[in-house]
C-alpha cells in the first residue's frame, strides 16, 4: 500500500432501489499519480465518480481526501477543497463567451463559494483575464476566446471544460471519458495535454473506454465490473490478468 495516499475510497456501497450499483469499493490513489478506472458499460464507473464529487451519497462507506471526509459534503464544498471534474457530456456555460467560461472558475478559486463582488467591473479583473487567456492558449482555444461557448464543436467544448478545471489548479482532477467523441487527432492532443499536467504533479482519476488513452496515461488501473473492483495494478499487470481479459478486454481488443 502506498504511503502517500491522497484519495481514499473505503468500503463504498451504493444501492439504487435494490440494485447494487457499487459493492465493497476500496480504492487508494497516491499523490501525483494518474489512476484509471476501466470496465464495461454499466460497471458503475460513473456512479463511483459521482460518489466522489458528492453528486450521489453512498449507501455505506466513506470517501476521504487528504484527511478530509468528503462524504456528506455538497459538490461546491468538495470543489473548494480542491477537486475538479470534467463531465462525460461537457457541463459548460453555453450562453457566455469562452473567456468568461474560464474566468468564472478562476474567480471561484480566488473569491471562494460566495462573494458579493459588485464594486468592480469584469474589465478591471486583468489578472484573472490574463490567467484565463494563458490556460486557453494551453488547450489551443485562445483564438476562440470571444466566441459563445455554445457555438463550439463538441471536441472544443471538452477542451474548454478541461481548461475550466485546470485554471482552478485542483489537487485532484476527475475525468469522465475526456476523449469520448473526439477524433484520433484530438484524442492525441488531449493525451499530450494531460501528460503535460501530469508533470505538474496533479493527481488524476480518469474513467476511459479508449485503451489507447488508458495505457498512455495511467500509472495504475482499477478494473470495475458489476459494481466491484475485480482487478487492480500497474498497466502491464492488468493487461495480463485473465479475469480482466474475460470481463472486458477480451471481446473489445
Amino acid at each position: 500500500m502506498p504511503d502517500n495516499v491522497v484519495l481514499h475510497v473505503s468500503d463504498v456501497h451504493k444501492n439504487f432501489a435494490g440494485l447494487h450499483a457499487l459493492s465493497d469499493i476500496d480504492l487508494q490513489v497516491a499523490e501525483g499519480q494518474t489512476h484509471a478506472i476501466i470496465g464495461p458499460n454499466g460497471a458503475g464507473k460513473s456512479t463511483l465518480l459521482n460518489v466522489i464529487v458528492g453528486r450521489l451519497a453512498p449507501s455505506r462507506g466513506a470517501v476521504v481526501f487528504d484527511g478530509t471526509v468528503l462524504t456528506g459534503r455538497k459538490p461546491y464544498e468538495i470543489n473548494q477543497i480542491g477537486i475538479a471534474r470534467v463531465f462525460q457530456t461537457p457541463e459548460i456555460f453555453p450562453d457566455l463567451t469562452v473567456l468568461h467560461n474560464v474566468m468564472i472558475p478562476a474567480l471561484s478559486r480566488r473569491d471562494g463559494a460566495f462573494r458579493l463582488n459588485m464594486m468592480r467591473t469584469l474589465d478591471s479583473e486583468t489578472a484573472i483575464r490574463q490567467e484565463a487567456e494563458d490556460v486557453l492558449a494551453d488547450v489551443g482555444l485562445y483564438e476562440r476566446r470571444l466566441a459563445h461557448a455554445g457555438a463550439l464543436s463538441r471536441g472544443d467544448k471538452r477542451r474548454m471544460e478541461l481548461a475550466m478545471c485546470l485554471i482552478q489548479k485542483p489537487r485532484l482532477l476527475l475525468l469522465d471519458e475526456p476523449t469520448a467523441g473526439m477524433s484520433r487527432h484530438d484524442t492525441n492532443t488531449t493525451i499530450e495535454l494531460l501528460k503535460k499536467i501530469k508533470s505538474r504533479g496533479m493527481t488524476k482519476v480518469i474513467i476511459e473506454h479508449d485503451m489507447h488513452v488508458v495505457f498512455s496515461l495511467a500509472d495504475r488501473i482499477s478494473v470495475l465490473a458489476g459494481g466491484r473492483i475485480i482487478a487492480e495494478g500497474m498497466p502491464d499487470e492488468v493487461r495480463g490478468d485473465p479475469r480482466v481479459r474475460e470481463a472486458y478486454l477480451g471481446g473489445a481488443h
Partner: protein
Amino acid sequence: MNTILVTRNDLLLLLGFTIAVLAMPIWLQPFGAAYPDLMQRFAIYGIFAIGFNILFGLTGYLSFGHAAFFGVGSYAAVWSFKLLTMDAIPALVFAVLISGLFALLIGYVSLKRSGIYFSILTLAFAQMSYNLAYSVLTPITNGETGLQLTLADPRHLDQALGISSRSPALLGQPLLGYAGFYFCAGLLIVAFFIAQRITGSPFGMMLRAIKSNQTRMHYTGFNTRPYTLAAFVISGMYAGLAGALLAITDPLAGAERMQWAASGEVVLMTILGGVGTLVGPVIGAWIIKYFENIFSAFNEGILHRTFDFLPDGLEDAVVLVTSKFVGEGWHLTLGLVFVLIVVFLPGGIMEGVRRLVHWARRPAEPGRASPRPQPAE
C-alpha cells in the same frame, strides 16, 4: 487599485439613457403622453422592471410575486408619511429597507426550489400578502379602503421641526407636477446605473452563469443560493422603491397593488422589452403604461374623427371594429402586440433593435440568418 468604475460603452449607454429620460417631456409630446403624472409612472414602472430583470433576466428565476414588494414599499412609505414626516427621503429609505427584509424572507423559502416550483411559490406568497393586506392586517393596511393620510396623523418628525406640509416633499420642495417627475426620473437614472454596475461586475457574471448552467456552478465551487438570494433581495428593493415612489405621487396605498395581475404585468414588461437587456425592460414598462393610460382613453368620438376621411358606411364599420381594441379593450391590443412580439421576436423589442442594426450594417448579404439573441452589455 486599478478598478475601472465604468467602461466607455457603459458610459455612453448611461448618457444616452439619461438624455432620453430627462427629455421625455419633449419627445413624448407627439404621442400625447407628455404630462407629468404619466411620465412619473413611466419612471416608476421603469424602476420596477429594471429591478425585476436583475432577478429574471440575469439568474433566470421567474418570480410571479414581485407586486408584493411593490405594495410593501407603498405601505411603508405611507406609514413614514403618517408617523414621521412628509419628506420623501425617509419614506424611500424606510420602504427600500422593509421591502428588502420582506424579500429576504420570501426569497429564502422560495429559492429552495427552482423553475416552475419557484414561480408558484412566489405567486403563493404574493397572494398571501395580498390577502393579509386586504383583510387580516387591516390595522396596518386599512384593508379595502387603503391606507391614507389623515388629519390625526402624528408626524413626529415634522412636528418637532415645526413643519406643517400636507403633501410629499423633498427638503421642503413639494413633489408635485414636474418636480415629482424629475425626482422619479433622477431615481430611474440612478437605478439604471446600479443595474448596469451589477450586470458588468463579477457578481453579475455569476448570476448569468447560474442562468446558463447551475450544475456547472456547483461543480465549480459556487454556493449558488446566496447569489440568487442576493439577486432576489436587490430586485425586491427595486420594487419597494418603485412602490414608495408611487405613494409619493399619490399618498395612498391599496391592497390591489399586490395582486397577481400586478405581478404579471412586470413579467410582461420585461419580456416585451427584452429579458436580460438593460434598456428593454424600461421600454416594455413604458409601452404597457402608455397603452394602459393613453389607448384606454380613446373613445368612439376620437375614432370617428380619426376615420373621418372614409365614406360614411365604411367609417362606421371601421370604427365599430377598432373600437373593440381601444378604450376598455386596450388589453386586447396589448395582448396582440405581446403575442406578435413573442412569436416573431422572442428576444423582445431589443432583439428587434439588434436585428435592425445588424441589417443596416450588412445590407450586401441578403438572406443572412439573424443573430442569436444575446444579452446586451
